[in-house]
């Protein structure tokens, strides 16, 4: 990194593919593709793993939707497939239903959204976009991927550990004492302990990634890559890594406390702590509990992590979408610094809003008022970002490809998720909406509507850099339309269900007279969900087909500016054939300087006109 050799030629025009600039020795298949320390391979490993987990989580969601549309009817396909349902006539039992929504959330949050953003794209993009040859700690990076598998294993075991129909059934929030006392529910036995182990291991994996990202971004930027020349993707990954590093230890500690409370389920001896168990509870006719614990403690600790985690599940997508919108609109990001500051504000405020999950919990009402105000204020940076995204598209030379459409959908749907959040930030209104389908609508608009659409766009946008080939834009457009319609058909009516007072996590809401007439609407939503679910095969099909048979492309198929586009597609081990030097900001689309070059972009590595300035050196 010490030598500064300005790359005097841009590589976009003439594509010379001498990928291995640094002369590496030949690697075996195992060390190249399995236990690889190359950030690109690890990123792709994360991406493929999370895409498969997306299908698992989606299948669980469809089973939930099946029960809500056709309560107590035999499940198609799956009902007959496994022996386990035959005793129940192919029906979903109520305890199985609690397992379904618990594992749907756990898989989607811990095995899809968090690892696909930080794990897949964080890994793949950070070194490439800052001009480094790899992560600061490649072995740690490899471990962060391979710790996902024990986590997946533990989650997998938790499905069957307590018996075939007694998977963990306490919701992804796992509130004690339901999750703390084995007699409380069929899924509160060994299944819950395994679930907690899985959660802890996901945390280990995230923490290793987070340390790596922070170090890499601080220390390994290419010469000239100052902080305010970093693409917003990198800013978002940086801020996310900080969030992870500060919030995660709290969840890990809380998880261990819960494990200690309940370890006797697994081991003959027990620690018999009672962090979350007050005395005198008679749960399911078991002996009264002894202890002086406080169940609200878990809620505080859990949400102290899990609220920042909501932003961990969103900020990287915000960063990546900003990059893609600028490229597809052929315009600089509108308000680059406000975008950075608003992400920082979201992250900072994100630490003082966790109590808004607890407005009905019986905590001190004075706390409720404080948390309400801070929660309202976090809408502000989100609003600023939305205005800036619209400003970015405004009067741009828009490329209407699937990347752009998915990004525009990100903005459109994030607006819905943001606005519905205001109802729930207002405590009196939240008292009615808490734990109804309104909240389910809200977080699906944020996590599916925003984050996943951002991911769909990112997969297609950076696919050429991963594999040197393009994905089919036509298939992606069909996928976009089906997913967009299915998504809105599934989740928009949930707002109305929430207003109608339909509680979440009900195996059979129609038992209650005032909800009976909502069955047809739920059936419509389930059909939309099935369309949306099956549309994902288009994404998977397109992805895997294009790895081998996609159209080949050069270094910079999108005519984008970032350093990653000056590397070969795909980059070899060590990434850059010419060590990159950064001369300018990441979003100089359609600048007068580019006009002079008869193009509408300028790579960050492209030096200023002869004899002007030397790059500002970022290293000390």
């Amino acid at each position, binding site marked *: 990194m010490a030598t500064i050799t300005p790359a005097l030629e841009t590589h976009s025009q003439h594509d010379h593919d001498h990928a291995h600039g640094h002369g590496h020795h030949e690697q075996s298949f195992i060390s190249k593709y399995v236990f690889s320390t190359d950030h690109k391979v690890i990123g792709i490993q994360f991406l493929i793993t999370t895409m498969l987990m997306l299908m698992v989580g989606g299948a669980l969601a469809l089973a939930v939707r099946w029960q809500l549309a056709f309560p107590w009817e035999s499940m198609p396909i799956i009902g007959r497939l496994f022996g386990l349902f035959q005793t129940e006539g192919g029906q979903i039992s109520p305890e199985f239903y609690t397992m379904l929504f618990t594992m749907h959330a756990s898989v989607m949050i811990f095995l899809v959204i968090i690892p696909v953003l930080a794990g897949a794209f964080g890994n793949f993009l950070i070194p490439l976009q800052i001009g480094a040859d790899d992560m600061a700690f490649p072995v740690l990076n490899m471990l962060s991927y391979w710790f996902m598998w024990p986590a997946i294993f533990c989650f997998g075991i938790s499905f069957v550990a307590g018996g075939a129909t007694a998977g963990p059934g306490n919701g992804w929030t796992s509130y004690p004492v339901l999750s703390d006392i084995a007699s409380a529910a069929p899924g509160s036995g060994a299944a819950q302990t395994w679930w907690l182990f899985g959660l802890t291991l996901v945390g280990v994996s995230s923490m290793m990634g987070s340390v790596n990202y922070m170090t890499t971004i601080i220390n390994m930027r290419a010469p000239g890559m100052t902080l305010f020349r970093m693409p917003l993707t990198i800013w978002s990954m940086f801020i996310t890594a900080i969030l992870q590093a500060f919030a995660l230890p709290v969840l890990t500690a809380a998880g261990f406390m819960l494990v200690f409370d309940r370890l006797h389920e697994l081991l003959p001896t027990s620690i018999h702590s009672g962090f979350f168990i007050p005395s005198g509870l008679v749960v*399911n006719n078991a002996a009264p509990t002894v202890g002086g614990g406080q169940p609200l403690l878990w809620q505080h600790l859990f949400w102290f992590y899990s609220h920042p985690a909501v932003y961990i599940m969103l900020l990287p997508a915000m960063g990546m979408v900003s990059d893609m919108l600028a490229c597809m609109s052929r315009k600089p990001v*509108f*308000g680059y610094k*406000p975008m950075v500051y608003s992400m920082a504000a979201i992250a900072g405020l994100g630490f003082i809003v966790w109590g808004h999950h607890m407005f*009905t919990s019986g905590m001190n009402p004075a706390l409720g008022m404080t948390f309400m105000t801070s929660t309202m204020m976090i809408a502000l940076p989100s609003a600023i970002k939305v205005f800036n995204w619209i400003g970015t598209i405004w009067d741009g030379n828009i490329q209407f490809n699937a990347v752009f459409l998915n990004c525009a959908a990100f903005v459109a749907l994030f*607006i819905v998720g943001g606005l519905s959040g205001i109802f729930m930030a207002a405590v009196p209104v939240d008292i009615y909406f808490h734990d109804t389908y309104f909240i389910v609508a809200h977080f699906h608009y944020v996590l599916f509507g925003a984050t996943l659409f951002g991911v769909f766009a990112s997969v297609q946008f950076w696919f050429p850099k991963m594999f040197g080939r393009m994905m089919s834009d036509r298939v992606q457009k069909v996928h976009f339309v089906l997913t967009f319609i299915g998504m809105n058909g599934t989740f928009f009516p949930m707002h109305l269900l929430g207003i109608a007072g339909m509680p979440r996590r*009900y195996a059979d809401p129609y038992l209650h007279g*005032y909800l009976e007439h909502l069955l047809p609407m739920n059936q419509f939503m389930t059909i939309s969900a099935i369309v949306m679910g099956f549309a994902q095969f288009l994404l998977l099909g397109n992805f895997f087909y294009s790895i081998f048979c996609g159209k080949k492309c050069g270094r910079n198929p999108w005519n984008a500016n970032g350093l990653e586009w000056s590397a070969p597609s795909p980059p070899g081990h060590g990434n850059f054939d010419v060590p990159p030097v950064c001369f300018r900001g990441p979003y100089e689309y359609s600048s007068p300087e580019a006009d002079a070059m008869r193009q509408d972009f300028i790579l960050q590595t492209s030096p200023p006109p002869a004899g002007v300035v030397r790059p500002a050196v970022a290293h000390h």
Partner: protein
Amino acid sequence: MKKFWAIFFWFWPLVALWLCAVAPANNWWFPSPPLSTLGHQIDGLFYLILIIVAVTFIGTQFALGYALWKGATKGSGDKAWFSHGSHKLEIIWTIVPAFILVFISLTQLDVLAEIRVISHFPKEARKAPAAEVMARQFEWRIRYARPGTELMNEPRPGDLYYVNEVHVPAVQPTMINLRTQDVQHAFFVPRLRVKQDAVPGLIIPVWFEIEQAGEYELLCAELCGWGHYKMKARIIAETPEQVQAYLSRLEQEQNEDGVADEQSSQ
């Protein structure tokens, strides 16, 4: 085809708005008008936020669609607008939403205090709880004091018990004590807009003033195990005299041993 996409992004918010507009007529809205005093205030705040949100939704979605439309109708030779942003715009769209958000929070505070802060409860409600509602997997156990005595936190001999049916007086502020015998539950009465978690180890007072005599669904809103969905109960609001009569009847039933005896039949 480009214009199609702009229209696509204009079209779906219209469908969403249409759906919300026809929702009340199709019974996809609140289960009934609020039937408690606090409910009116909660609904009022809801509609205030709904108006602000609807205006923002229409404005931002229209602007997004228009930005797409501008892009779609741009001539092939036209250049994109080279701009890194506008300081003035940033200030406007920071300050205006900030004021609106602070305004929304301020409007909520009084109602929140009335709902949750015990010193703000109406005096009549604070005097004595009408009943203790003890949640349990998967039912609601109701405990009343024997007529003429006061309800204590510890059960006393002579207390009256019933399951899944709470009788409370209508048209007067009423307080109940909420607790749970096992895991966490939540006391949710949709038509009254009342919701409060029942937390293991805590006794939480909840108050409401029901405006009309009648029956109100009571259900659980916090995951409490496999039977969470079937914690079905009802609140029966009636005149104070009817409540008294109900309690006397309950007392009689509870003390009745089935043997005709002169003292007990009196």
